[in-house]
């Protein structure tokens, strides 16, 4: 029975490792500038975690195999080095390992969060609500009109609560239901939630940030590969959470301008 347990543990460990090694289910391809560091960090961590995982399971299995149902007079032996050795090992191996991970990880985090957006970053505002994203482009004047919560009305398709009659800045704002961005240009995303907590997650972009109601946050990123991607909500926001999504189109600059023209016509 004990030997069976040992074998089972080893088999399970190997089976668990195979999909990771063969990249059966892997991260979606990265299309962002800062994403490289994150992927690197993940693969480093995967390596260290994987080794610790396999090592621990194997040693566990081996000991179970060796030291189960021994004879009555067999001698109890003490682990060479004893507790002290293991504690030191834990501090040296695991301790240094995790600290190293933490320090390297700091780079990746900093590249995503601690760097201010570039001057020429394209500002886009995204508003999350139950259960859809809507996007706003400032238009020629480069300014967003103020949001009037009392004017927000999905019934009248006034998703941002803009006052078209009084606010000059609002007149040329372009509101869209899908997000188009130019490739290789930094996007400064201003995040606003009109009701509850939501989150903005684009796996390929290596971007995830919660919307905090009553607190407007902003993130910035640069996409490097044209294509169609999905924006999904990762913060439980109600019954439609699973279906709260929008499409992200990464265009070449001229395609982007054309797309924006088209959207403007639809206003």
């Amino acid at each position, binding site marked *: 029975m004990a030997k069976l347990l040992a074998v089972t543990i080893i088999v399970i460990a190997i089976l668990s490792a195979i999909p990771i090694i063969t990249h059966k289910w892997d991260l979606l391809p990265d299309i962002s500038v800062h994403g490289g560091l994150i992927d690197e960090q993940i693969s480093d961590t995967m390596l260290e975690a994987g080794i610790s995982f396999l090592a*621990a399971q194997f040693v566990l299995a081996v000991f179970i195999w060796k030291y189960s149902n021994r004879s009555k007079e067999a001698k109890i032996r003490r682990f060479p080095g004893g507790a002290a050795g293991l504690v030191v090992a834990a501090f040296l191996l695991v301790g240094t390992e995790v600290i190293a991970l933490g320090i390297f990880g700091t780079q990746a985090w900093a590249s995503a969060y601690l760097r201010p957006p570039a001057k020429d970053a394209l500002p886009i505002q995204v508003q999350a609500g139950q259960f859809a994203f809507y996007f706003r482009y400032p238009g020629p004047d480069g300014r967003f009109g103020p949001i009037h*919560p009392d004017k927000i009305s999905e019934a009248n398709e006034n998703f941002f609560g803009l006052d078209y009659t009084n606010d000059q800045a609002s007149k040329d704002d372009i509101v869209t239901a899908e997000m188009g961005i130019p490739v290789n240009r930094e996007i400064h995303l201003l995040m606003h939630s009109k009701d509850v907590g939501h989150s903005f997650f684009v796996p390929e972009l290596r971007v995830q940030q919660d919307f905090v109601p009553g607190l407007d946050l902003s993130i910035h990123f640069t996409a490097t590969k044209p294509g169609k991607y999905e924006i999904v909500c990762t913060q439980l926001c109600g019954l439609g959470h699973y279906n709260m999504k929008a499409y992200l189109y990464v265009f070449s600059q001229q395609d982007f301008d054309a797309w924006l023209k088209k959207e403007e016509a639809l206003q």
Partner: protein
Amino acid sequence: MATHAVHHHAPPVGFLRKYVFSLDHKVIGKQYYGLALVAVFLGMLLSWLMRLHLGWTNLAIPGLHFLSKTGAAGDVMTPEYYLQLMTMHGTIMVFFVLTTAPFAAFGNYFLPIQVGAEDMPFPHFNMMSFWVTLAGFLVLLSSFFVGDGPSLAGWTQYAPLSAVGAVAGPGQGTGEILWASSIALFCIGQLLGSLNFIPTTLDLRAKGLSLGRLPYTVWAWFITSCMALAAFAVLTPACIFLILDHVAGTSFFVPSNLVINDQLQPHSGGSTLLWQHLFWFFGHPEVYIAIVPGMGIVSHILSTNIRRPLLSYKVIVGSMVSIAFLSYMVYGHHMFVSGMNPISALAFSFPTLIITIPATIIVLMWIGSLYGSKIRINAASLFALGFISVFVTGGVSGFFLAQPSIDIMLHATYFVVGHFHLVMAVAAMFGIFAGTYFWFPKMFGRMMNETLGKLHFWLTFVGAYAIFMPFHYLGLAGNVRRYQAFVDDYTQSLIPLHKFITVAALATGAAQLIFLYNLIHSRFWGKPAPLNPWEATSLEWSTPSSPPPFDNFGSTLPVVYHDAYQYGVHSSTGDYLMQASPEELPAEAKE
């Protein structure tokens, strides 16, 4: 106040006093165990329904509409009903199973016995603790039957979704208020529990039982009650704030200018992050409240079944203590992408990484102790060994989630679900199973069926991995948690994996029925248990009978002469020496 300290030690008379409103810590422990048993099977049923729905989204589950007229008309689960089941599953499991079973149930039953006391110092508080907790459980269940069902905001209940009321979704009105009240009651119940556990450990120890001689379990329960003290004392006001935001129109958690369904909400200026801070300050220690008793139980059972003391008593206890301390400095890692200051994210990241060190040390102590030992295989030891394997597996995925940069990718994905299910849920359950197989003879005076127990272990061990390992792959592929269906294009390829998980979950769940049968059958028809079936040393095996008499040790209380794990020695009884036996060991035999 020591209101009830002295006066209750006549044997209880009358059915009510004996079995219902009992002051006896043993009966209360059994009551807690029963509560946890009901709760765990209910929670499992909910997870079955959820898994079925995730595997085959528009599948009609026959009879489902009996459970909820609105949530599942025509037997097809609606999104809101899925989320409601999910919320209830999480709440029931975390609070009423993982906290009550290893901590309140086993703790109540064995803490006083293992310290050689007759009972807890405040039996009336102890009784209240159970009944208040039970009331909390019933209040939670009642939300299935009122209004449009239970809350759908998940067990973390993030504001403002949880605080704005029915307009935010089904169950966010009455159901939400019931949720908050239930948890507030639960917190009070557990505080009353800690109020007993800590003095019991400090003051009621038998003669000669110094802190350095306590069994690991006692330390675990003591540390846990200290953690529970701080954690639940913080969650209680949070729940009260939540209730006030609902019924009194206050704005603790609801900011201004929210527009829900085109209606401008009346609230002003609350802070949504405030809830997250309060909740996770409780929530992260709660994870350790669930797992530390498991660690204690496993250390205890392991030492007994490998017939030797673990490598270092002081190191293991020290690690548990340091885990408890660190657990209050790490809660922010749940909020890396919640709009916290990016710098503070780093500040929370490092303690989180460092907390892996004491955890690793404990694991190394366990594995190192196996070396050169004599492992006895029985249901209890199998689950203890399985605990180590599962705990390691769940633990290493913590390396990822402790790092904010990686959390950008993995936050709120199935990777997280896999992580905490393995390290917290499955591991803690293994601890509970091990404890049950180990202590059942003492609790009920009968042995459990070993064969069924082993069968139960194999199915559960393999099944748990089959269910929760794939969660990590899903997470890496970007599959977001808390979705009732997968409509995103990039998740389509993952649905077969979900189907596989569902099948595994159904099978593993079914395997738990073996355990239930074994439990009930052995309770009444199991073969009578000897006083010390496992040749164990600690005080619970020195009681005059199994189950022990109402005052545990009969007329005389034990005196302790040895530390709790005198195994692998040469004594008159064999290779072990009981804590309470005055026998002196030949010098060379002492470790």
